[in-house]
């Protein structure tokens, strides 16, 4: 049951094949078994069981709240959850229990979803590995998969298996791992420069970043307000569409959400792709791109072409400026957003009380890690009166150029862009930490970040396994507020790709019967 998609398990709940409480207990049990993944910071067991019980009552009365009723979900620990500690994986918020729910959390709960817990991340979502949080790194479930282990055994005998675990990518690595390891059916991430899509690609799940303004940010503890979007991680595109349908729409508490009413999302099944125009941005053919990812990318393009779509090369000429531009805008907003963490109203406060200023300084030094402090420092530098024009204003102009690049391409008739999500498959932790956070983030975000600059919807879809037996994802980018069209195309592609299910039987013997073995061998694109 746990291996199923959200829609499948929802049907099972409706038909009474399983009760919400049984489902919740199975997930809780699996969370315990996979504790070593460090996917969760907080497991809200009591709350979850209570919610499941409520859901069960509704099902018994025949008053189900819809597709999400009784479905176990997880939420990244940078969304405020009423009564549940929300830490952003930072010392400064350890022990902080918000008195309110983020709008997206409230919407999930209103639809009957069962909240399993809060997932791990890089501190304040600053990172691309989920390795830089105060609760330690998240381990990629694929490190323990039959697919990956099998390949490794062939290669290197005698190597210490445990020291070679892989990163999940980030910063929503906890959410991606939680979904990949079947501990929930959907998870919320956040996506500022690729933080939902990147770990989704590394963990073999779907990672969807909606259009900016489609989903409320109220209650999402911000990284970069003008780029942050709540992200959705699921095991298939259709599930992401279901969750999006529940979350999308105007929120009076977030003035940047669109006013127009959002129609319910139901993904039509795309019979063919004849009328579709797929753009392949030539600038995304980066030298660092692994040959395997490149090969899957071109195979995917060929697939679209062979099925009748028009596939054309397009140009997004300002792409190469995206990283540096992002650096200025991100750190500036970070410097501003982090100013509130002074130890006065909430969160950590140091013992020093010689003066208010000394208290601020010590509190913030103790509270933030090096990455956060570094970004605060650079951001404040860029915002200084003497630097503002040369950095912030320039970066804003470049941002506009980057957004215009996309506009031009879409105006020329392209429906959807197809790109890689990441440069390569997930790397082992020990290799990942050889580079500092800033370098890694700059490298890892290159295909995902420009999308946030432009506020466009994008989704990473798992395509196939690499030679090492690790997931590879490709990204589709759509027109602003054409999220439904984007997901429709992604869903069509997903069906063609037939990405294999992760094999974690060795770890989860009790659940082996729950997995759908029949899909395992088909990796159509690898043929």
């Amino acid at each position, binding site marked *: 049951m746990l291996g199923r998609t959200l829609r499948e398990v929802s049907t099972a709940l409706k038909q009474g094949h399983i009760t919400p409480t049984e489902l919740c207990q199975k997930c809780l049990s699996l969370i315990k078994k996979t504790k070593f993944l460090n996917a969760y910071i907080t497991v809200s067991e009591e709350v979850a069981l209570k919610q499941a019980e409520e859901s069960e009552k509704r099902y018994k009365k025949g008053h189900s709240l819809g597709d999400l009723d009784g479905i176990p979900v997880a939420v990244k620990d940078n969304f405020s959850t009423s009564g549940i500690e929300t830490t952003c994986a930072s010392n400064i918020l350890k022990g902080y229990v918000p008195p309110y729910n983020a709008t997206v959390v409230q919407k999930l709960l209103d639809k009957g979803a069962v909240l399993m817990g809060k997932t791990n991340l890089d501190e304040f979502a600053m990172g691309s590995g989920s390795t830089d949080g105060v609760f330690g790194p998240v381990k990629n479930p694929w490190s323990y998969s039959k697919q990956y282990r099998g390949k490794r055994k062939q290669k290197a005998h005698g190597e210490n298996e445990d020291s070679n675990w892989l990163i999940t990518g980030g910063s929503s690595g906890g959410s991606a791992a939680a979904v990949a390891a079947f501990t929930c059916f959907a998870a919320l991430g956040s996506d500022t420069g690729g933080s939902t899509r990147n770990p989704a690609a590394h963990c073999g799940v779907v990672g969807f970043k909606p259009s900016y303004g489609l989903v409320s940010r109220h209650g999402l503890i911000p990284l970069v307000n003008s780029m942050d979007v709540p992200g959705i991680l699921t095991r298939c595109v259709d599930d992401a569409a279901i969750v999006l349908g529940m979350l999308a729409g105007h929120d009076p508490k977030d*003035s940047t959400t669109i006013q127009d009413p959002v129609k319910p999302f139901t993904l039509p099944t795309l019979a063919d792709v004849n009328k579709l125009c797929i753009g392949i941005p030539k600038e995304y053919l980066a030298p660092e791109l692994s040959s395997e990812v490149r090969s899957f990318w071109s195979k995917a393009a060929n697939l679209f072409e062979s099925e009748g779509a028009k596939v054309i090369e397009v140009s997004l000429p300002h792409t190469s400026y995206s990283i540096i531009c992002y650096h200025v805008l991100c750190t500036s907003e970070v410097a*501003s957003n982090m*100013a509130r963490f*002074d130890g006065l*109203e909430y969160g950590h406060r140091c013992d020093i009380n010689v003066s*208010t200023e000394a208290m601020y300084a010590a509190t913030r030094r103790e509270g933030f890690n090096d990455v956060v402090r570094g970004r605060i420092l650079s951001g404040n530098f860029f*915002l*200084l009166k003497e630097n503002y024009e040369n950095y912030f204003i320039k970066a804003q102009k470049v941002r506009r150029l980057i957004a215009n690049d996309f506009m031009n391409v879409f105006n020329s008739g392209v429906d959807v862009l197809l790109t890689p999500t990441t440069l390569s498959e997930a790397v082992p932790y020990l290799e990942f930490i050889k580079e500092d956070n800033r370098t890694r983030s700059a490298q890892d975000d290159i295909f995902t970040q420009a999308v946030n600059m432009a506020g466009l919807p994008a989704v990473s879809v798992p395509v196939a396994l690499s030679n090492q037996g690790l997931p590879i994802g490709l990204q589709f980018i759509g027109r602003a507020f054409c999220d439904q069209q984007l997901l429709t195309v992604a869903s069509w592609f997903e069906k063609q790709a037939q990405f294999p299910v992760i094999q974690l039987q060795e770890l989860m013997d009790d659940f082996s019967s729950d997995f759908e073995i029949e899909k395992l061998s088909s990796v159509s694109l690898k043929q």
Partner: protein
Amino acid sequence: MAAPVKRWSCVGKRWVLAYIDGGSRHGRGAAIGFTSRRKRGQSSVAQQPLITAQKSRKGEHEWEAVVGLEIHAQISSNSKLFSGSQVHFAAPPNSLVSFFDASLPGTLPVLNRRCVEAAVMTGLALNCRINKKSLFDRKHYFYADLPAGYQITQQRLPIAVNGSLAYSVCVGKKPSQVSTKTVRIKQIQLEQDSGKSLHDEPRSQTLIDLNRAGVGLLEVVLEPDMSCGEEAASAVRELQLILQALGTSQANMAEGQLRVDANISVHHPGEPLGVRTEVKNLNSARFLAKAIDFEIERQIHELENGRKILNETRSFDYKLGCTMPMRDKEGKQDYRFMPEPNLPPLLLHDTASLPPGADPQQVINIDWIRERLPELPSETREKLIQQYGMLPEHSFALLNEVGLLEFFQNVIKETRAEPKKVTSWVLNIFLGFLKQQNLTVNESPVTPSALAELLNLLDRKAISSSAAKQVMDVKRGNPRAINKLMGLVRKATLSRADPTVIKKILERKLSS
């Protein structure tokens, strides 16, 4: 010390406020010497521009003071600028604080429509150009009563710009010599108020009250078109009356709803402006005038003694009557302004630009607000002058006290007495009575009807002017006045009435 020569001249009294201040103004100047004349000793005449040289006597240089103001007016609205918290003065500490006001992570600002309308109204009343598009910015500084570490304000593109405010000052010795002056308004911007820090020195702790945090403010920036404390105080007083007439701010300085910072510099006419100082947090019109005049004198004194003026922030010590350098939080501040990313541009419409089918709840129509502007104080005064042949200074006086105009109008309605007589009675006898009793108009035991009746009796010559004044005197709490009244009644009744009965009747009448 240089010999006294009259230098910077602000022409006389702030008579708009004369009724409030009583006679206190007369002795003031002499104490710090600004009405005296001084000679400037050292500096070379040849370096001065010709115009200046012509104006001044040989070997002397006039000083000219330049005063600009930044005024913060708390917007009168039920809820705060970006949150739904209530706004009340003197509520229990931290009882009016939303999650946003306390800057809980993840909370977002939602602009209060009422505050925008108040800004538009104020802008229109002050002859501003209303920007159809304005923007919000973050201004960063660390302070305990600023929970987010930044204030949301409108630095780049404020909601209203390029206005003007006309105010009057008295130019001569007689109050009738009124001169109307104009100060340009640079801009009006919407911004958040901060909380309050309460320093408990003995326990060396600071307590924070966030009730005020996030309350909407109108920052009105007046260009440096004023030249003395009197002018500044008059301009502020006029602004106060306008805000009160509009209902956009209660503008009560004592309750902190109107706070003024003054920028002050002195220079010789025709020369570039001098280095300015900023005197912060002036919360009464009287202290505003005093602080500015003191600061001007201080600057002149410093310069004449060959010292320099520092570009600094000063505070006014009302007990000592002087300004002092503030111990600045951390020296020169760089506020690191940044666009507020959580608020889209504030778009306003006029009837021409109104999108068809727009939801009236979602748009603000400037023309609609313009058409519904209430009567402004200047218009009211003009009407009084036209309608009742009132002297301009009397029209000012009537508007100067809360409720006095209404009282006057109610008396007028019910009496046959001449408007001039009513004016004189209301402004002199009635107001004098209130001042003596330390009462506001609304607390007055004398109702408009009672005064009207009294004036009717006077008008019918049923009683004499002196008898009428005795009535007021009794009201004023002068027990001996009743004896005079008794005398008048006895006279009128040819001593036939019983004095005890007369006294009883009089006391009953007067206490009613």
